[in-house]
């Protein structure tokens, strides 16, 4: 039989894990998975439609952006 203090400790640990998980997800999404849904949609459209009908030709007058 677990005491109240043990139950409370389990609750604290689980809560901390949950908070860390949520924080990690938000940070990872911000850094690496921005607009993941949009990227997937664009990629699918490109592979299914654009690449089959059109060809790529090197463009002029552009620059890289951070």
């Amino acid at each position, binding site marked *: 039989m677990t005491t109240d203090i043990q139950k409370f400790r389990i609750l604290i640990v689980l809560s901390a894990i949950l908070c860390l998980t949520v924080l990690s997800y938000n940070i990872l999404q911000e850094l690496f998975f*921005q*607009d993941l849904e*949009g*990227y997937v949609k*664009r*990629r699918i*459209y*490109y592979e299914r*439609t*654009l690449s089959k*009908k*059109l*060809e*790529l*030709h*090197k*463009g*002029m*007058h*552009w*620059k*890289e*952006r*951070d």
Partner: protein
Amino acid sequence: MAKRVQCELCPTECVLEDYQVGGCRTRINRGGALYSLVYGKPCAVAVDPIEKKPFFHFLPGSRAFSIATAGCVLSCKFCQNWQISQASPEETDNRNLPPEDVVRQAVFYNCRSITYTYTEPAVFFEYMLDTAKIAAQLRLKNTMHSCGYIKETPLREISKYLDAADIDLKAFTEDFYSRICGGRLRPVLDALVVLRERGVWLEITNLVIPTLNDDIRRIKEMCGWIVKNLGPDVPLHFSRFFPNYRLKDLPPTPLETIRDARKTALDAGLRYVYTGNVPDGAENTNCPKCGKTLVAREGFSIRQNDISGGRCRHCGTAIAGIWT
């Protein structure tokens, strides 16, 4: 994911994520580099009289081999070619016509020029540039009909090969360009000045739309700006609007409005002002000095041409234009 890129072709300057297509629908970021989707893939190809572009002071009576791809940098609600300008290239029926074949066909059909037109040639910049280079080597002229919404650097680059340009100056207010076209006026005015400076033969077209850009005071301001910044010899074509695309609820431009616009332009000092889409409109070129009709036109046909050596055959006044 790959890096973002920023297109620097038109003043919109789209910033594109990986696999994202630009607002013009013809350029894509693929793996951190920008590519054209329309190179060598025109959806409109035709042989037209040069007067149809409209060019009235450039090789009259000659044929222009005209090409366009899908896409446009603007989204004008009155666009007369909206079926292709507002379409994406994957939606249009495209031909495979590389630059050398464009030139080959232009020669085959006895065209003296190649015109980049119908939609907005800026969106197929690379295709236009490569074609123009080959055409110039074979002494074919290069002309374009554009909205002028292109940045200075690419404009200067293409103007090395351009002999003439007809620019749509759609209105003389930022509000019109923003609300009706999705763009800005200032870059178009800048483009006109650059073309003039580069020695490209310039003609201007203005579609007069009732209630939107038919204010005679604005037309007067526009004409004053043209005279001051481009000179009184730039031909100005006023064209009559007919309901189309997203402006089907407006009436056609009253004939009186077109005539008033022309009179305003002549009063402002412009020497060559024409009207289009108008029955018995002002389509003839008259000598600004002696007033005699030099080039008589009926539709797109030339009935009479009394310009000799670039001068009025009657009084010898130099008539601005490229006549041979």
